[in-house]
């Protein structure tokens, strides 16, 4: 992107926490240590941040303007320049990236969090559907994905065994990730022996729900090089949206992900690994094809969102997982993906690179 006239912007620090359920602490109580760690890792305070952006959802918290209580954790006195998206934190990162591109700031702080355990996520997610014809039916979020999975299987693009292979690999990779929730290895045959939960999806095809969040510092150009040994540059980033109505989409592909990948420059060079926000095994199968990822690309070395799905942070955490891997030298170029909405409706794709 250096020739494009855009500024070089990098991730320079990251902190995360994911657990099956966080019951004792409020959102701000469990976010404060993560916010402090991400800033302390690069020796910055809140007052050093040119901009702060966060992602979360009132529908998970069950409270209007719930994000306001969490801003307290940043230490926003004297007043800070701040914004919030009712979206996964990956979109907060995108807003911060745009703000950094404007050129008047060199650092940004991005955090996101979600606690699904207080409510029924399968019901809460029904509220994101079309409010006139679909949401009033309270379609179970897993059932919606099950219908899409059935269409995908019948298209012949993927088999149940291939989905089980994705689930098995996620469990295997997650075994070494302390932030993953589903970390018990299971063979393909063991997974195929599971009873259907949302036919044709089995429990291992469905994300392990998690509570938690993450915090991250972004910096531009030389400021990024001052702050850490190996900044991880965002070389390309783009996000696109498919139609909201499921009935008008081809659910066996993700056109918006394909376009975002082209715009982000995924095909311009060799990719070492990909961190895909694929909550379901079917999402991963569709994304690998849409993003044009070859057999040589390691997919979701962290275990991915299947192994720990913190709503509103799972996409953002993909950026963080890729940052940590590249920063410690386990790869030089990665594809990162984040999604929102039912059946991969909204997709963000980025290419990250170490120096």
């Amino acid at each position, binding site marked *: 992107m250096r020739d494009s006239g855009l500024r070089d912007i990098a991730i320079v620090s990251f902190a995360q926490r994911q657990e099956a359920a966080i019951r*004792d602490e409020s959102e*701000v109580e469990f976010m404060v240590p993560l916010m*402090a760690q991400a800033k302390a890792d690069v020796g910055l305070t809140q007052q050093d941040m040119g901009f702060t952006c966060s992602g979360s959802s009132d529908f998970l918290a069950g409270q209007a303007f719930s994000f306001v209580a969490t801003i*307290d954790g*940043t*230490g926003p*006195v004297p007043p800070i320049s701040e914004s919030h998206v009712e979206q996964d934190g990956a979109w907060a990162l995108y807003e911060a990236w745009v703000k950094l591109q404007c050129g008047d700031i060199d650092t940004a702080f991005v955090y996101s969090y979600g606690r699904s355990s207080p409510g029924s996520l399968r019901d809460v997610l029904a509220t994101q559907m079309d409010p006139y014809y679909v*949401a*009033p039916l309270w379609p179970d979020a897993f059932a919606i994905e099950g219908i899409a999975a059935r269409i995908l299987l019948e298209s012949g693009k993927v088999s149940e065994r291939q989905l089980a292979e994705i689930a098995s690999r996620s469990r295997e990779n997650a075994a070494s990730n302390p932030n993953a929730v589903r970390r018990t290895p299971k063979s393909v045959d063991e997974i195929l022996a599971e009873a259907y939960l949302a036919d044709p999806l089995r429990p291992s095809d469905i994300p392990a729900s998690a509570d938690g969040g993450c915090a991250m510092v972004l910096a531009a150009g030389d400021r990024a090089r001052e702050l850490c040994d190996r900044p991880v540059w965002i070389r390309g980033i783009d996000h696109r949206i498919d139609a909201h109505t499921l009935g008008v989409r081809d659910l066996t592909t993700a056109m918006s992900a394909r376009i975002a990948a082209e715009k982000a420059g995924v095909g311009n060079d060799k990719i070492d690994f990909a961190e895909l926000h694929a909550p379901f095994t079917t999402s991963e199968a569709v994304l690998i094809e849409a993003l044009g990822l070859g057999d040589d690309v390691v997919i979701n070395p962290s275990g991915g969102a299947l192994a720990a799905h913190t709503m509103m942070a799972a996409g953002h955490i993909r950026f963080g997982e890729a940052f940590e891997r590249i920063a410690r030298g386990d790869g030089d170029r990665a594809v990162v993906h984040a999604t929102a909405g039912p059946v991969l409706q909204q997709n963000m794709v980025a290419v990250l690179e170490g120096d």
Partner: protein
Amino acid sequence: MAYTKSQDPSSRPAGLDVAVTVPDSIANVERVQSVRTPIRIEYTYTPGKALSTYLRGMKEKKILAERCPQTGQVFVPPRGVSPVAGIPTEGPVELPDTGYVESFNITRVPIASRPELEPPYCSAWILLDGASVGFMGLVINIEPESVKLGTRVRAVWKPDDELEMSATNVLGWEPTGEPDVDIPDIETIGQKGELE
């Protein structure tokens, strides 16, 4: 430049002037004018460590705040974090159930969702003794017109056998009869925390 009708932004789009026809099979069905799609989602709310301590204190008629270890400010109700320093607060810090009215408002229209509130009533921003920030409460057992900035108040608690782990244990705040607190400069109201 004068607008022709088609360019006039306030004119109806041409498409709306076309007569709408429906298939014969549903010609006699009543038109749908509107839909109601009620939404109800239930949550098991957990308020966090600091607020849990506060709510347990309420059952004992205690007001348990927390203190910022960096600035010394005392926050009530406690949220577990200092919104000034961005660090965890420490506690509990027990506060008396007395304070004064920093600011108030008299409401003269009823609220449908709060039938028990009979207008006129006085809701106030109450600064507890020892606290750095105020919070909302009702001033009761006084004519609303008699409330002043600086009126000293004390909590009126529910009867002991009705106490719950809830802030609703405080029915309201009544005047203590002590002399008013002097507020020399109204510009400082709500800024006690910053002044410390």
